[in-house]
C-alpha cells in the first residue's frame, strides 16, 4: 500500500502569507502557540522545497518563505538545518531556488551568532563541492556570495571610524602694533 507523506493542509499553505504578516506584528519571540504553527509551516515548507514534482515557482516561494520562518523562529543553526540546506543545494538546478537556499545555508552556518565565521566556512565547503563537480554555482548564487563579501567590507570600514578632530586651541588675537603705531614725534629743540 502506498504511503502518504504527511502534507501541509492546503488551507495552511494559503494562509501562510497572513501567518507571516501576523507574526511580523508581534514582539521578537513568538508566543508558544505561534511558534508551534510556525514550526509546522517550516516543516511543510521544507517538504515543498525538496519536492521536485512541485511547480518551480511554488518551490521558489517556499524557499524564500522558509528563510523568513527561520528568522521569525530565530532557530538558525538548529540541529540538521545546515545539512538539509546543503543536501537541497546539491539537488536543485533552479537559479532562484539555489539563491534562497544559499541565503538560508549562510544563516544556518552562522547559527544565530553575531559573526560571519560560520558563513565563511560554508563557502569553503561550497568551493570544495564545486571543485569536486558536485555543485554548480549559478548567477544568483554568485550574487549571494558577492553580497556577503560586500557586507564584510562595510563591517571592516565600520571598525576604522575614528574621529580626526584636533583639540581646540585659542590663538591670542594679533595685537602687535609695532609696525602700525609709532610714537608721536618729539618736538624739535
Amino acid at each position, binding site marked *: 500500500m502506498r504511503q502518504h507523506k504527511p502534507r501541509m493542509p492546503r488551507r495552511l499553505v494559503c494562509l501562510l502569507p497572513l501567518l507571516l504578516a501576523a*507574526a*511580523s*506584528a*508581534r*514582539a*521578537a*519571540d*513568538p508566543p508558544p502557540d505561534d511558534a508551534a504553527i510556525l514550526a509546522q509551516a517550516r516543516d511543510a515548507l521544507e517538504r515543498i522545497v525538496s519536492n521536485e514534482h512541485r511547480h518551480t515557482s511554488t518551490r521558489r516561494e517556499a524557499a524564500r518563505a522558509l*528563510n*523568513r520562518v*527561520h*528568522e*521569525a523562529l*530565530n532557530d*538558525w543553526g538548529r540541529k540538521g538545518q545546515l545539512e538539509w540546506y546543503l543536501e537541497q543545494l546539491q539537488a536543485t538546478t533552479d537559479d532562484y531556488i539555489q539563491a534562497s537556499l544559499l*541565503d*538560508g545555508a*549562510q*544563516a544556518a552556518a*552562522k547559527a*544565530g*551568532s*553575531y*559573526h*560571519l*565565521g*560560520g558563513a*565563511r*566556512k560554508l563557502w*569553503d565547503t561550497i568551493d570544495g563541492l564545486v571543485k569536486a563537480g558536485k555543485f554548480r554555482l549559478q548567477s544568483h548564487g554568485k550574487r*549571494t556570495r558577492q*553580497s*556577503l563579501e*560586500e*557586507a*564584510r567590507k*562595510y*563591517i*571592516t*570600514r*565600520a*571598525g*576604522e*571610524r*575614528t*574621529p*580626526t*578632530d*584636533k*583639540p*581646540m*586651541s*585659542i590663538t591670542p588675537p594679533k595685537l602687535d602694533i609695532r609696525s602700525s603705531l609709532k610714537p608721536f614725534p618729539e618736538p624739535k629743540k
Partner: protein
Amino acid sequence: MNSTPRFPLARLPLAWLLALALAATGALRAAEPPQPDPLAKMLKDADRLKSNRNEHGRVLRLCEEVIATPRATKDQKLQAFDTMAYAYAQKRSYADHIKLMDRLRALFPGDAAVDRKALLAQIGVYRTWKKPTEGLAAASELAEKHAADKPTVAAAHAHRAYFFYRARKYEDCYDAADKAVALDPENHEQVLAVLRLLSDAAWSKGHMERCLAASLRMLEPQLAALTPEHELPGRQKRPGECLVRLERHDDARDHFLKVEKATPDPRAAQEFCYLAARAALDGKHYDQALATFDRVFTSYPDRTDYWPHAQQGIVDAHRAAGRFPQAIAAARILLDAARDRGGVANYTRLIAELFRAIDNHLGRANQMINFQRFGPLGEDGKPGTPDDLKNPLAAIRYPDCSARDKALAKARKEAGDDAKAAHFRAVTYTYTGQPREALRHYLDAFARAHGSDYRTIGPEMIAIGARAARGHPVGLEAFAEFVNHGPDGPDGKPGTPDDLKDPFAPLLK
C-alpha cells in the same frame, strides 16, 4: 366541380406581378451592406497606424489625401488634422506640427473654434519644444483674437504665465497668473496649475509674501482635492516655509501644527511636527519647542525618520536657552547615534563646545576631544601611563527619557520578529539613552539576519552599538575583525594563534 388552381400567383394580373418583382429586388438591395466611405476607411487606417513610428509616412499620406479631397466633410478634415498632429507629436517634429496648425487655421479662416484649437495646440508644442518667446506670441494672439471669450483669455494668460516663468520674467509671470485666476476662478484645475507656477516662481525668486498667498490658496479644499496625493505634503509644507523665511515664527509653528493634524500621511505628519518645533525654537519658545521635539518621538514611535533631527533640535533648544548641562546630556544621545566618522567628529566637537561654554576654559573640552580620539589608554595606547584619559561624559547622566521610553515600549513590542524589527528596537534604545540595551538588540538583529541585512545591520552594530556601549570609537577594528572572521580567526581553524576573543562579551555583562 370547382378545382383549386395549382398556382395561385397565376391568377394575379401581370402588372401586379411586375410590381411585386420590383419591390423584391428593391428589398434585396436595401438588405445589402452600405458601401464603405473610402475617406472614412482612410481615416480609420490612419488612426490605427498613428502610434506606429514606422508607418508615420503612410499616416501623413492618408491624411493629406483626405484633406485634399473636395468632398471630405469638415469633421473628416479635422480628424485628419488631429491624426497628423498626433503623428508629429509622436515623432517630435515640432516645426511640422506648428506648420500643420497654421494650415488648419488657413483652411477654416472664420472659424473661431478651429482657430482657438489650433492656437492652443501650437502653444502646447512651444511648451514641449521649450520655445518661450514663440509660445508667448501664440498665447498673446490667442488672448487678443478671443478677447470676448473669458475662459480662453484665462487659458491664454495661464500659458503666458508659464512662458514668462520659463523666461525668468517673474513680475510678468505674476501678472499673467493673477489675470488667469481672476478671469476663470471656477476652472479649478487651471487655477491650481497657475497657483503652483506662481508659488514656485515666487519661492525661487524669494518673494515670500506672494508665495505664501499662492500656497495658502492651493490648500483650499476644492483645490487641495485636485492635488496629487504624492504632491500634497510638499504643498502643505510650503506656506510654513514661507512664514519661517518671513520670520513669522509663531504663525509658522501654528501652520505646521495645523497641517500635522490634517495630513493623512504619518511620515509627513512627523516632519510637520518637527518643523513646528523648529519654528517654536526660532520664535524663542524653548519649552514649547522641547515638548514638540519630544513629540517627534512619542507621537510617532514607529517612525525613526526624524528622530536624529529632533534630538539635534533638543540640544539646540537647551543651548539657546543657556541650559548647557542639559544640552550636553541630550547631545550624548546624538553622539551615541552617530553612524559615521563625520557624525562622531561633529557631535564630539558640539559637546566640547558645550563644556567650554560651561567652564569658560578648554580643560574638559579638550579632554572630550582627546578621549574620542585616543580612548582611555591615551595617545600611547598603553595602560597605566601618564597620558591615560578619562571620559568627561562619564560624570554626566543621560537625560530623563522615561516618557519617551514608555511611548516607544509599545512600538518595540509591535515591531515584529525579523532582523529589521530587532534593528528598530536597537534604535529606540539608543534614543532613550540605553546604549548597552541597544547593543543587545543590534546583536539580536545580526543574529537573526540573512541576505542583504548583514550589510546594513553589521556596520551599525559596530559603529553605533559597540561604540556607544564603550563610549569611544578607538579599537573598533577588533570588533570588525571578530564579526568578519568569528572566534576561529582569519584562518578559520580553532586552536591556532590567530584565534580571536569576543570583544562584545565584556560589554554585555
